[in-house]
């Protein structure tokens, strides 16, 4: 009995009237876990019962603790007939199993009934005592932390990134079991909810086991999906990235700890360091290059201490001899001050320094690169899909032989992994070296009944096949890894489209250790990690901290440099020298599925770009249908790609981030929706315009028509450039010509001079102007394209939109955020629509949704809709459903303008400033230290080689690849200025919550505010604790649709209820926000004739505690009242 689960039922409130005669309820509660059930006494005649039960104790295996939810059922006692159920609460106790997450669940939780919705609330207390030491798990994996967040969570640093984990479990869908014919809809829904709860628990446990095997302690970017396959069953599958995470303290530094406290404590200080790339210089680590603990994640921990205790620190952490780049006191501000302005220079400086650490060139033999080249191969479809890109590649030089060597080493290490895939979308700086482009694979399958749920081989094999394909695509791009990886399905009757996509990339090995060293490392580390408790964190910090030096590309543009061999470009692309560093080749466009790297150099702002497509297909069955769909897919993807490309050019931009392509299949049509955030990467060439060409130039009216259109397009491009501040300076040449080279060369201290000067002479500066995209207008597709191009209505003033986490050019977020979900279903009334007609309808549907958002959120302007996530579905033959979840974040206008100016007109100037800064920095640095560094890395190439695996993860681009690079608009997620806007959701003032004399149960006071956001951060606040993953599944059904306000009324209240339940569970865990929230499933079915509807919703996210930065500043740390209480209580236990 390794665990004891304890639950106490305190009280209920707002219960429904169950006894018409008395207008009251005789409520009691059943508490069930596994097969054990306890009951409270009946509390007669009250709608606000006070049970105050004893502690109900369940002694259970930890395996069960992971799999099972605690089930609380509230019933109305009836002497003469069966007791009526009021509703249920499922409590996922997983967060209680991890020492670093929540320790108690306590609060008011909505009582939910699948037919009636929320019916009152119940106050419960739940705790878990785990007896034995957690290292002895066999089937359980208690203690593994799960995060939906697709970056390293805010108060952790990644010690190691182990890689891809996946699992799936299958079962029969209760809705399709024979018994469903005789049981009530409520019983059926509850069976389903419970089953999915169990399956999710099991899945998580199994994934946890895999993580343990790999030596990790956490899963980041955990993505769990359901496939409701109908007759053939129910599949729950999940992917994620196994990591070893290390907690950086939960204590707000400036406020709670005197900065001169002991060094070990110092290490615990919160470091929201993603922004600060860190890469500390080492003056010569005695034990080179192992286990560098993500200095890049936490550079500031040392900074803050620099002035007072750096000596001590050195002595305490003998393996980590560090020299910090910024020995001066001002750096202290970086940590303590929440002002972005304080961070920015800091970051820039670091960025510069990073360049100077570039190791000396290593030599690589031709054979190496030949080998590399050999694996470049690609399939026809890749070519097809990629053909929309620029054409022809100019010959150029491989940036450095070093790259190839390192890459190869990394590759070999990575190849040991089955799938070098990462579900992360943003990375510690220095991790992502190069990006190849988007890789994706799809396959169409026919569903068959899953005969043995314990052996879900078929489904496994399907995904394996897809992943292998992705892997091969990645190779073709000269990459080793896939980042921003995700998988999805679309099911219609028996046909299922499986899709996977990601971004091919080359990663730095610093976060990935392979080989024996690593094993040792793990062994030594693991006990520390898992043996309980709180003090662990500081303990192993020292040992894991050391530094490594690897190829370091300029942070602002390095990731845009092509990873593939330019002589064997896997697709036609136009390469030029990077417009930032002039050293390496970059493509003309870059598409990726990841977030914009924080350090990327961007000109202007970004915007949401969508390609939408509808294609009719014939009704079909079985194989024939599947084949028809397979045949349509490549065309669909190609057209989506062309649309994206056109729209990108129309906005004068050259790169897409966060690209997500959804293909949805219905009986008679296929829907394709591609969403991404377009930006202008400063490193990439300026996109050419769009030129329309007609086939019959002789006709004058026709010519006029064409020239009109051409003019329209040109005007739009010009307008867009202004709107998004995309003014790449025409003057690039001049500026580059003289003032820049000097600092550039300086900063590239270890590069050979000859090489760089060659580059300069080879620069093709006129590139980008001469190639325009030609659209042949006689082509019906082109007409459609142009139509689509010009019908996208511009965002109204004061609004920006993106589907990524951050928006370049906007930094000064206020703390006002508004998360929302919107769903629309369109019924096609005319059965005989053409492709064009369908396209129009679909496009309008999406556009109108956006317009509605802009209107509804107008009070928040200036604001940006971030993480706009569109999900399309074809729930029925003639229905198109679009569901959107996003967050609107307002920002400070004045600063935005300023930024705009900086970002726009002055980009190049800014670049110079940066360079100046860099230069100064270098000068400030002790020259010996840099030199020393160089010597070390130069003289120990062999020592380094084994451990430097350039983890390269390759993705394969089923279609497109483009590259970009960005100016250093370090947009920092964690540190957003809060001064200007007052917290809108402040807790209720006391006066408001005054309770009624007649009603004691209200005395609990008002409801704590819980923020929700699809982003991984909360502007103006620091996340100080992750409380565990929220993964909830609800079914709601009604047989009185009209009475509930029709389909809209029904869904509206259901979504509101889901939000309410998420908030309540988060609050019960002691949290005050959900980050990385997403609605992964929203399956809506209706039968208006029968007055019925049913909806299934699955949501997930990470429950966190955050503290406003403004509050951190205050001397007394007084985080939001309600939260602190609970969390303190929790920590005490």
């Amino acid at each position, binding site marked *: 009995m390794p665990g004891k689960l304890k639950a106490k039922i305190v009280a209920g*409130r*707002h219960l429904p009237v169950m006894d018409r005669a008395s207008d009251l309820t005789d409520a009691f509660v059943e508490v069930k876990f596994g097969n054990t059930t306890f009951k409270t006494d009946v509390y007669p005649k009250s709608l606000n019962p006070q049970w105050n039960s004893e502690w109900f104790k369940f002694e259970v295996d930890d395996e069960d603790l992971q799999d099972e939810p605690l089930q609380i059922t509230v019933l109305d006692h009836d002497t003469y007939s069966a007791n009526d159920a009021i509703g249920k609460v499922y409590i996922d106790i997983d967060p209680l199993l991890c020492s670093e997450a929540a320790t108690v669940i306590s609060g*008011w939780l*909505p009582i939910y009934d699948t037919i009636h919705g929320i019916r009152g*609330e119940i106050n419960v207390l739940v705790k878990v005592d785990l007896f034995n030491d957690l290292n002895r798990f066999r089937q359980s994996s208690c203690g593994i932390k799960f995060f939906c967040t697709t970056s390293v969570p805010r108060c952790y640093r990644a010690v190691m990134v182990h890689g891809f984990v996946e699992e799936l479990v299958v079962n029969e869908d209760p809705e399709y079991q024979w018994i469903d014919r005789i049981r009530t809809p409520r019983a059926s829904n509850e069976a389903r909810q419970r089953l999915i709860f169990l399956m999710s628990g099991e899945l998580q446990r199994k994934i946890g086991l895999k993580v343990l095997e790999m030596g990790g302690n956490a899963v980041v970017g955990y993505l769990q999906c359901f496939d409701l396959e109908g007759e053939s069953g129910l599949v729950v599958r999940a992917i994620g990235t196994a990591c070893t995470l290390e907690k950086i303290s939960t204590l707000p530094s400036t406020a709670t700890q005197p900065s001169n406290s002991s060094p070990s404590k110092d290490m615990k200080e919160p470091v929201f360091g993603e922004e600060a790339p860190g890469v500390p210089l080492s003056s010569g680590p005695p034990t080179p290059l192992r286990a560098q603990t993500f200095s890049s994640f936490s550079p500031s921990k040392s900074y803050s201490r620099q002035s007072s205790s750096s000596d001590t620190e050195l002595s305490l952490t003998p393996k980590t001899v560090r020299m910090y780049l910024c020995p001066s006191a001002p750096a202290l501000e970086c940590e303590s001050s929440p002002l972005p302005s304080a961070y920015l220079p800091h970051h820039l400086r670091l960025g510069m320094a990073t360049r100077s650490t570039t190791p000396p060139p290593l030599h690589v033999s031709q054979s190496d690169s030949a080998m590399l080249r050999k694996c470049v191969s690609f399939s026809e479809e890749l070519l097809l899909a990629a053909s929309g890109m620029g054409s022809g590649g100019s010959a150029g030089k491989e940036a450095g032989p070093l790259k190839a060597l390192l890459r190869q080493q990394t590759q070999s290490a990575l190849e040991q992994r089955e799938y070098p895939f990462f579900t992360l979308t943003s990375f510690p700086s220095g991790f992502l070296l190069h990006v190849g482009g988007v890789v994706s694979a799809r396959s169409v399958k026919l569903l068959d009944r899953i005969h043995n749920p314990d052996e879900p081989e078929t489904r496994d094999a399907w995904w394996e096949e897809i992943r292998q394909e992705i892997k091969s695509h990645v190779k073709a791009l000269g990459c080793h890894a896939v980042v921003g990886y995700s998988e999805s399905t679309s099911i219609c009757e028996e046909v299922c489209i499986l899709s996977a996509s990601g971004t091919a990339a080359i990663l730095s090995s610093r976060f990935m250790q392979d080989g024996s060293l690593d094993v040792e490392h793990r062994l030594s580390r693991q006990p520390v990690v898992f043996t309980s408790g709180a003090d662990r964190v500081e303990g192993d910090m020292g040992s894991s901290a050391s530094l490594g030096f690897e190829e370091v590309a300029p942070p602002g543009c390095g990731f845009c440099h092509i990873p593939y061999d330019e002589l064997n470009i896997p697709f036609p692309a136009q390469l030029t020298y990077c417009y930032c560093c002039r050293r390496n080749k970059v493509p003309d466009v870059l598409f990726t599925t990841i977030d914009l790297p924080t350090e990327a150099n961007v000109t202007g702002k970004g915007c949401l770009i969508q390609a939408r497509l509808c294609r009719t297909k014939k009704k079909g069955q079985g194989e024939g249908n599947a084949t028809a769909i397979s045949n349509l897919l490549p065309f669909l993807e190609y057209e989506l790609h062309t649309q994206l490309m056109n729209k990108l050019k129309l906005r004068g931009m050259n790169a897409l981030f966060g690209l997500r392509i959804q293909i949805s299949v219905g009986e008679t049509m296929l829907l394709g929706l591609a969403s991404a955030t377009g930006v202008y990467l400063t490193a990439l060439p300026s996109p050419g315009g769009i030129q329309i060409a007609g086939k019959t130039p002789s006709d004058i009216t026709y010519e006029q028509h064409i020239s009109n259109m051409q003019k329209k397009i040109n005007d739009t491009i010009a307008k867009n450039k202004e709107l998004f501040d995309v003014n790449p300076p025409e003057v690039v040449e001049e500026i580059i010509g003289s003032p820049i080279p000097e600092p550039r060369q300086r900063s590239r201290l270890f590069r050979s001079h000859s090489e760089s000067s060659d580059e300069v002479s080879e620069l093709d500066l006129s590139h980008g102007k001469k190639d325009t995209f030609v659209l042949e207008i006689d082509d019906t597709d082109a007409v459609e394209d142009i139509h689509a191009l010009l019908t996208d209505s511009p965002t*109204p003033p004061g609004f920006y939109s993106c589907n990524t986490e951050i928006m370049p050019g906007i930094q000064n977020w206020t703390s006002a955020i*508004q*998360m*929302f*979900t*919107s*769903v*629309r*279903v*369109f*019924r096609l*009334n005319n059965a005989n629509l053409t492709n064009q007609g369908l396209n129009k309808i679909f496009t309008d*549907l999406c556009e*109108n949704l956006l*317009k*509605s*958002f*802009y*209107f*509804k*959120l*107008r009070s928040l302007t200036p604001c940006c809709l971030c993480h706009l996530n569109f999900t399309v579905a074809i729930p029925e033959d003639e229905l198109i*459903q679009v569901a959107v979840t996003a967050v609107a974040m307002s920002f400070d206008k004045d600063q935005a303008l300023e930024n705009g100016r900086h970002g726009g007109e002055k980009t190049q100037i800014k670049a110079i400033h940066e360079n100046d800064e860099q230069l100064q920095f270098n000068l400030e640095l002790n020259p010996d230290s840099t030199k020393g560094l160089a010597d070390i890395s130069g003289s120990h190439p062999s020592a380094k080689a084994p451990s430097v695996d350039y983890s390269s993860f390759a993705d394969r681009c089923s279609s497109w690849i483009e590259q970009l690079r960005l100016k250093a608009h370090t947009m920092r997620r964690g540190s957003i200025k809060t001064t200007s806007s007052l917290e*809108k*959701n*402040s807790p*209720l*003032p006391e006066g*408001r*919550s*005054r*309770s*009624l*004399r007649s*009603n004691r149960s*209200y005395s*609990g006071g*008002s*409801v704590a*505010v819980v923020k929700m956001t699809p982003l991984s951060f909360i502007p103006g606040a620091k996340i100080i604790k992750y409380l565990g993953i929220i993964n909830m599944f609800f079914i709601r059904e009604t047989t009185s649709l009209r009475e509930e*306000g029709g*389909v*809209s*009324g029904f*869904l*509206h209240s259901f*979504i*509101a*209820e889901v*939000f*309410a*339940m998420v*908030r*309540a569970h988060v609050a019960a865990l002691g949290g005050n926000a959900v980050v990385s929230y997403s609605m992964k499933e929203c399956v*809506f079915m209706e039968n208006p004739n029968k007055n019925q509807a049913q909806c299934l919703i699955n949501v997930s996210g990470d429950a966190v505690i955050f503290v406003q930065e403004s509050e951190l500043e205050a001397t007394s740390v007084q985080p939001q009242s309600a939260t602190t209480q609970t969390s303190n209580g929790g920590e005490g236990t």
Partner: protein
Amino acid sequence: SVELDVFVGNTTIMDKEVYQLWLNGYTVNDAVKVRIDGGIMEECEASVEVLLSDTMDQYRTFQMCERLLHHPTKLANQLLFQIPPDRQAMLIERYYAFDDAFAREVLGKKLSKGTKKDLDDVSAKTNITLKSCRRQFDNFKRVFKVVEELKGPLVENIRQHFLLPDQLARDYAAVVFFANNRFETGKKKLQYLTFQDFALCAGQLINNWTLGAVDNMMEDMDVDLDKEFLQDLKELKILITDKDLLDQHKSLVCTALRGKTNVFTEMEANFKNLSRGLVNIAAKLINAKDVRDFFIDLVEKFIEPCRSDRWTSIDVNLYLTHYTNSAHILDTFKHHSVWTRYMGVIKSCILRMYHE
């Protein structure tokens, strides 16, 4: 056609303007028209579809909130909608806000089903939509039901249980007080009085003539008039039944007012009538039937005679002040406290009700 269209925010989005339209009982289409006329389309570059969708959404949200608004204290405790406190206050305040014109019609009537059935007449008369009338009526009834049985100060009870701002709570107190005592307000002669006129009077009565006015720890609350006080009022009859006292009173008042008013002669001539009127009202208040006629009596017995003699408000004020004070100087008059308690209210009410 768009078959389903919902938008749900984590923080519930509510537009004050749309809320008001909803409260006013506009249909979705009418509300959209009003919004368009307000120029919002130009302002926000919105189309009719967008407006329609937004209005529908908000109407749905309000409908879902309505059940919570019936118990405003629940709004702060409920989990379904996350609404910032200032918004909650706004929602409640506006939901419970009522039109004076409507209240004027219902004032003093029994808050029964019968009255509710007649609301269409009220609606027609006041030009307030029937829907809005019903909401306002239901609010009256709800507040009435809750505070009817409660002890303690009426206004404070309303304020606490319905989280209303002070002024609104006072207005509700007036409505409840009138409904409880069934004051007649519908007579033709009273038509010129506004709701606020009556609300002020109600406030005076509640603060001075109820049990709670004397001792708010009493078991009873201040919806009902202080019976003991009403009993004592009978004693005031001496002022008109004792001829000497009446003459003495008159001469004191006349002496004080001579030369200070333009209507002195009329006043002098009317003194006995006026005094009889006021004292008779006092003496009869012990009968519930006469309580109902309190206001009509005031008008008939005092206000109308004064008005026909073209007294100004200043004249009335002057007269009542001296009329009240002079009584205390009378040798044989012993009922000073009852007199003060009575005349204080009478004076305030008359001054408010006296429209020149």
